């Protein structure tokens, strides 16, 4: 910091130091904001939730209902102006579970269960209604 001290008056000394500190704070704040934006990016949550749902379905027997908390996902969807009703999709023909949190794209992952699946939104939860499958 020695560089900012001169033999001039004290007010002349203070101004560059304050500017220097403000610029540094601004730089690190921007860097922090970038890291925060990346950590809450839609693509990360799309992949995470598609895989979670697929694994939950694979790990469940037919005729099961699972209530799944999606509060964080809802926040990301709202940030991207995405209607929650169009976030989840299940393609029964190939077992593909899709999560779309932005208008640009989404992520899909396959479940191997043939029980069938219905997805229903209830407040901050997603209800996974796993179908009947074969006759017991």
């Amino acid at each position: 910091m020695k560089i900012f001290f001169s033999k001039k008056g004290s007010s002349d000394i203070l101004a560059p130091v304050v500017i220097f500190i403000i610029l540094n704070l601004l730089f690190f704040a921007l860097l922090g904001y970038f890291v925060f934006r990346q950590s809450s990016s839609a693509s990360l949550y799309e992949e995470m939730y598609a895989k979670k749902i697929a694994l939950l379905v694979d790990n469940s027997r037919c005729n099961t209902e699972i209530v799944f908390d999606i509060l964080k996902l809802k926040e990301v969807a709202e940030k991207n102006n995405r209607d929650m009703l169009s976030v989840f999709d299940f393609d029964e023909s190939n077992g593909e579970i899709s999560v779309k949190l932005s208008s640009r794209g989404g992520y899909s992952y396959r479940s191997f269960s043939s029980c069938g699946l219905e997805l229903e939104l209830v407040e901050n939860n997603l209800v996974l209604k796993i179908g009947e499958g074969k006759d017991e």
Partner: protein
Amino acid sequence: MNKVGGEKILSIWWFFVLALVSAGVVGGVFLFYSFDLDVREVESGIMVNRVYDCIGSNGFLREDVFLDGFDIYEYCDINKELFYKNGSEVYLEVEVFDLGELVFSNYSRNNDLKKSYDISSEVEFKDPPKGFLGSEVFLYREDGEIKNMDVKVVFVSDQKGESLHFT
């Protein structure tokens, strides 16, 4: 040394440090978040347990396994098409042994996946498929006699998911 010159050198140096720090942070963040969440091994374990859960009951192997036309996919509510289509990303193998003799077997289509999985334990190569090999002993009642059956289930997955892009 000239004082003004020294200040200039230090401010250039300071900008260089800031650029270096930001490049490091940005690079690190991109590298961290670009990695896939690999769940193939967990998925394989789940599917192996699913098969054990449906062919066994209270430690006994269900008799249905030895019926003519027994379809393990239908019986365990597994989507058979995904295992038999071209370029399938998954492989399932079920073998039942009675005193070392193979009495039931079912192998899905993509045997190459199983070979890659087997090789990956000996030879290192980039991004091999992940799998889970289960081996359990079940009891089986036949002609009033209870015997042990070894049931081997292998599930191999190379499913990586798909990013969807809308135009």
